[in-house]
């Protein structure tokens, strides 16, 4: 697997050419959207119910943000690449955009967010891209400040590409030291193509009655307990206090939005039978 974080800092790698792919490369769009959808599923905002305020870390072109909007929630996003954020602006995403380095810490008041997601960004923090960067210090600053800006019991879900077990350990232990509980969920652990790592964190203990999310495609892992690891303070309870499900944006919403973008002369993908369809899991 290629490791772009070894070659250049993120604000350089995600320049105009790379950013363009997020509107033109349908395979890439599909994968990003799928991972965002899964991250949101693991975030499980439905547990509390209603429309929530979500932070998207490394929000880029806003494909992940669109998924948040589609599920009836609101978001603000931050990203270190101006080119990526320009694409997000061009795509007229719903969320507010901030040009920022997550390693410098979160710049929000305490308790503002009901959840956070991050798609394919966290591994970038493990590199030192500036002379004054120290990955451990930056990870600490990041998780500490993230803990503060999340509401009590809120979740943060990171899809990321750990380079090796040592890096995974560095990231997870940094999060735990800052007060998070939770652990890794590995989907399709036996497939080289579909295998995906999700770090699922709780700001404090998981809420009462909250059930640990399960990894996908781990049937054959049953004997050794599967790949959902590292959960602390898990409580099993059956008094599910499910709230009202927030409104899922339907196909009409997506088509209406595309129409308005087209009117403004934007280059928007044509509506097809795939537009806003419910996506199924990755193909393995």
């Amino acid at each position, binding site marked *: 697997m290629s490791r772009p974080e070894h070659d250049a800092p993120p604000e350089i790698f995600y320049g105009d050419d790379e950013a363009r792919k997020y509107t033109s490369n349908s395979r890439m769009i599909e994968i990003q959207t799928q991972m965002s959808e899964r991250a949101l599923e693991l975030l499980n905002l439905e547990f509390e119910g*209603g429309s929530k305020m979500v932070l998207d870390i490394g929000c880029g072109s806003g494909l992940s943000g669109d998924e948040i909007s589609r599920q009836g929630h609101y978001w603000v996003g931050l990203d270190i690449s101006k080119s990526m954020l320009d694409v997000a602006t061009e795509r007229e995403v719903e969320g507010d955009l*901030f040009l920022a380095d997550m390693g410098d810490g979160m710049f929000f008041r305490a308790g503002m967010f009901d959840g956070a997601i991050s798609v394919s960004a966290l591994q970038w923090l493990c590199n030192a891209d500036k002379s004054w960067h120290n990955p451990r210090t930056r990870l600490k600053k990041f998780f500490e400040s993230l803990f503060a800006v999340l509401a009590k019991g809120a979740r943060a879900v990171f899809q990321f590409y750990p380079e090796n077990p040592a890096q995974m350990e560095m990231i997870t232990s940094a999060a735990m030291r800052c007060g998070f509980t939770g652990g890794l969920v590995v989907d399709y652990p036996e497939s080289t193509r579909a295998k995906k790592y999700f770090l699922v964190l709780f700001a404090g203990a998981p809420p009462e009655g909250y059930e640990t999310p399960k990894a996908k495609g781990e049937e054959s892992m049953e004997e050794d307990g599967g790949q959902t690891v590292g959960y602390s303070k898990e409580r099993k309870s059956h008094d599910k206090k499910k709230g*009202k499900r927030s409104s899922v944006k339907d196909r009409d919403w997506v088509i209406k939005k595309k129409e308005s973008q087209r009117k403004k002369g934007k280059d928007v993908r044509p509506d097809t039978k795939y537009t806003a369809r419910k996506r199924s899991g990755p193909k393995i």
Partner: protein
Amino acid sequence: MRILSHNMLQCIVKGCGAANYPLRLNGEAVHKESEYNEDFIKHMMSKIDYPALYQASQDVKIDLPSSLPEDYLDNEEFLKKIHDVTHIEEGGLYCNNCKRIYPIKNGIVNMLLNENEV
């Protein structure tokens, strides 16, 4: 950036101190259409710092009551006003405490810090 998001922002320049909130706003308010979501705005009202919201509204000349109406949770006209996505497209945020300016260009707020600020 929405006025509602401004309410969540604070200065994180190293050593800025406790008076890092709220940031002052500079720019022209642009009105954008959005679907009213009563459930969401009521939820957000529990997080909003009203004095900061009022100050921001003064900064960019939008009309809000100087104090939170007592019946605000039942006051649809007021809630709609808050929900209205008033954007700042060009301008900046200003920290009264450490004098740092965070520029806003094309709707995007630049929160990048320099080496001596982290």
